[in-house]
């Protein structure tokens, strides 16, 4: 880089102080680079006054957009995204958050067996609420893939609830005998379809990525702790046990993040048929 061009860029970088600090931290380097590109283009292909023209346009651009950035910092670019979540979306999101929190609660407090049944049912119900709420957004992007992601998770979580309810009053452990085998498959289906829903949600990109990432990774890790797979047992503690527990916690965190987004974030726009990618 020539010293003259470096001087231009230093001066331009100094002018960027008119933007809010947060914006500057994110984009100052890119803006200086873009301005440098404009200068290089002006020097190579334009008349001698082209550099002055580039500066004039840059200062005008800077004055207008810096003021806008200060006063309309939190505006949304898409007017249709400005609508607040519907009441039903808020409700579904809160049910999902509650389910995730109850799942995590067992990591910090002792929960009585009777209450544990309610906790597990609330967890599955919360997951189903989130699936429904997120699917509403996904359907506007890719309706078929959204269904393929949502239906297995809904069915598997409903199946798991049914198994929990059927287990009420049984004297032997829930994982024992033929019932235990069916319960194993219900649990396996639940974790795998939760992971699948996380992957589909990540692919469709209608919510921030951390929720679906936590859900996908957590659900897969949780599978490794299932008794019948034999990867871990009280007699043979390995790293798999803690990993599986971390996976269950991560699954709960995933539902909580998704629930918070659904309950608080703006809804997706309505898109006409045929607009899906």
């Amino acid at each position: 880089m020539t010293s003259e061009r470096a001087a231009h860029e230093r001066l331009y970088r100094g002018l960027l102080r008119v933007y809010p600090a947060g914006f500057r931290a994110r984009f100052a380097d890119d803006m200086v680079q873009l301005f440098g590109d404009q200068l290089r283009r002006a020097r190579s292909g334009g008349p001698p006054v082209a550099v002055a023209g580039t500066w004039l346009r840059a200062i005008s651009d800077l004055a207008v957009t810096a003021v806008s950035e200060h006063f309309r910092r939190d505006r949304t670019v898409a007017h249709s995204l400005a609508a607040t979540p519907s009441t039903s979306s808020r409700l579904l999101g809160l049910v999902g958050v509650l389910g995730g929190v109850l799942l995590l609660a067992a990591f910090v407090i002792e929960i009585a067996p009777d209450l544990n049944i309610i906790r597990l049912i609330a967890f599955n119900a919360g997951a189903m609420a989130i699936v429904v709420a997120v699917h509403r957004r996904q359907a506007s992007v890719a309706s078929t893939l959204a269904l393929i992601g949502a239906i297995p998770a809904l069915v598997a979580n409903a199946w798991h609830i049914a198994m929990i309810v059927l287990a009420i009053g049984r004297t032997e452990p829930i994982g024992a005998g033929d019932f235990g085998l069916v319960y194993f498959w219900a649990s396996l289906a639940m974790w795998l379809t939760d992971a699948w829903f996380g992957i589909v949600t990540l692919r469709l990109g209608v919510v921030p990525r951390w929720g679906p990432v936590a859900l996908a990774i957590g659900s897969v890790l949780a599978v490794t702790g299932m008794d019948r797979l034999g990867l871990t047992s009280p007699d043979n503690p390995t790293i798999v046990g803690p990993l599986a527990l971390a996976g269950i916690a991560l699954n709960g965190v995933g539902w909580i993040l998704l629930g918070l987004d659904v309950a608080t974030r703006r809804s997706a726009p309505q898109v006409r048929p045929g607009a899906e990618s």
Partner: protein
Amino acid sequence: MEATDQPPPGPPLSRTATLVLLAIGPEERHGYAIMAEVARMTEGATRLGPGGVYTTIKRLLDDGLIEESDARPDPDLDDQRRRYYRLTGLGRAIASAEVRRLDSLVRAARPWALEAIG
């Protein structure tokens, strides 16, 4: 979400945001390429500066309409420091909805508007 035959009730995007979304299109583009594409698409009528490009990119990122891409072209062909952006699923859906809305407007106005000019 229930689909509808009616177009969205109003312009869902600001003009600059629409141009930036359409300029990115199916590609992965950095700021300068976006600026150049906007100028090309509008036949030079709109020339965004660095501020216009990046204040819009910031809002599109915050709204989840675009995302930063990890992909980089051949290092010999480009500067590794450049950040590239691509549309998210939501961004594609909104861009598509906006194109349909504009197309509907143009089709409705074309018969009389072009006749008046011609």
